[in-house]
């Protein structure tokens, strides 16, 4: 599990959306399983990468179950009927994110945080080797933030998935992530959180006259 951090406007979401082919790449090369991203058909890519974006879904009239079931679309037939395996994957995704009590609710009845959990479950139901999440925990309270991230970490380790997410909660990321990518204006650092702390990468993130980084506790202090 990897977190992308950086200040506002540095391009965290842009990077994530480019990796997910949500927006076109400007330059450079993206390889998925050693194959260039642009060589994938939308359908082939859909069974490799699933995304959770910050933009609201178009129809809030979907029920939670319908929304999560849409995650199975890459695998269903021309009209989208779900077979036993699909239903099993959907049930598994729902129980992993603990959404059983909500599954027959409409999306407009949910809070922002609940909706975010639903979107995570949809990505899980899509059952891809890579999951990209754009600020998946921004609307959640501390407990649910940690709950979702721990769950994602568990899934990443258990099923050998790659989970990449953008976040502003650097302190939580330091504690939970296997790797972190710090985006800065002229350079980026990538590595294990402890490694990055040793390299004093977090100190450079914010102007040192307002916020400093305490390497021992792994947290930021306001001056």
């Amino acid at each position: 599990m990897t977190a992308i951090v950086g200040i506002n406007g540095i391009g965290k979401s842009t990077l994530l959306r480019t990796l997910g082919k949500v927006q076109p790449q400007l330059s450079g090369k993206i390889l998925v399983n050693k194959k260039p991203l642009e060589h994938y058909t939308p359908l082939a890519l859909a069974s490799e990468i699933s995304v959770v974006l910050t933009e609201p879904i178009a129809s809030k009239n979907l029920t939670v179950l319908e929304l999560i079931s849409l995650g199975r679309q890459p695998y269903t037939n021309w009209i989208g009927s779900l077979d036993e395996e699909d239903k099993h994957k959907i049930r598994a995704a729902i129980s992993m994110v603990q959404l059983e009590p909500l599954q027959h609710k409409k999306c407009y009845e949910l809070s922002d945080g609940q909706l975010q959990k639903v979107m995570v479950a949809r990505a899980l139901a899509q059952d891809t080797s890579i999951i990209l999440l754009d600020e998946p925990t921004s609307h959640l309270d501390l407990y649910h933030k940690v709950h979702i991230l721990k769950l994602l970490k568990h899934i990443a380790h258990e099923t050998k998935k790659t989970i990449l997410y953008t976040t502003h909660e650097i302190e939580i990321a330091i504690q939970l992530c296997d790797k972190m990518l710090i985006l800065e204006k002229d350079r980026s650092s990538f590595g294990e959180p402890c490694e990055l702390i040793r390299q004093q990468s977090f100190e450079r993130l914010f102007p040192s006259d307002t916020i400093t980084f305490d390497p021992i506790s792994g947290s930021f202090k306001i001056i």
Partner: protein
Amino acid sequence: MNDHKKYKVPFTVLGIVLLLCFVINISLGSVSIPFSDTMKIIFGAEATNNSWKYIIWNYRVPKAFAAILIGSGLSLSGLLMQTLFRNPLAGPFVLGISSGASLGAAILIMGSSLMGSLFSFSFINDISLAIASSIGSFLVLLAVVVVAARVKDTMALLIIGLMFGSITGALVSVLSYFTNAEKLQQYIYWSFGSVGNLSWNQLLMLLIIILIGTLISVLCIKPLNAFLLGENYARSLGVNLKNSRFFIIIATGLLAGGITAFAGPIAFIGLAVPHLTRQIFNTTDHRILLPAVLVYGAILMLLCDTIAQMPNSSSVLPINAITSIIGAPVVIWLLLRKRKMIF
């Protein structure tokens, strides 16, 4: 989603209601024919009065079929547009698609008298009228699609649709200013909208157009469902955005354009029926909505036509007046509803 059984009951009920509406529509009209005789004529028995038989088979039955086709087709095109534009207020009439068809028809009917000597397309037959209004509706639809890609706002899109309607309306006025009275009258009658006056041949053409449109829509059910999440999510689910958008637009244009060609611009059915359907079938799944909308649209159109016919009187109200009386309140209700802009 998985339990399709729970939709069997509403579908059976709707089917029975459709049949009932069909029978009622046929048995009522300007000439009063006893119900028992109507039944006899439909089931091929000898009727007491031969002119009744003629009225029913050559006037009322084609009209009822036309109402079914028009109601279904317009409602389906409304459903497609609402999902495509992710806009609960989208519909062929509101977004100016019908006005585009009107412009096409106006240019054909009235323009031919202006340029009659230059172009000798003075033959205004069903096919040329269908082609002209389909082209008109496609052009406006494409313009709306281009604009919709730029504005994300629901209201802005509606206002733009309204403006397209105004532009085509203005062009029609210019045309009608220069045309002769006879052609103008022909156009105005067309623009009132009517489900009657269609021959069996015209009905067959309409049927073919609507079947093609419906077939394309059925093949698009999966992308339509994915579009409910928004385009970016749809792409991430493996939907080929360009292709599916293209096919949905083709289906919408065929349905809305073809129907407007034969029946004139008919207001609000395309907008209102998908919403009314969602009230019964509490789902967003197009596998359920698509057939439901077809049946519901047919029922509503049959009812509107029965009312417009003003049973037992010789006068006929313009069908547009009736559909607007039913459809416009639906729009108001949509805007007043607490959780508005949800579709």
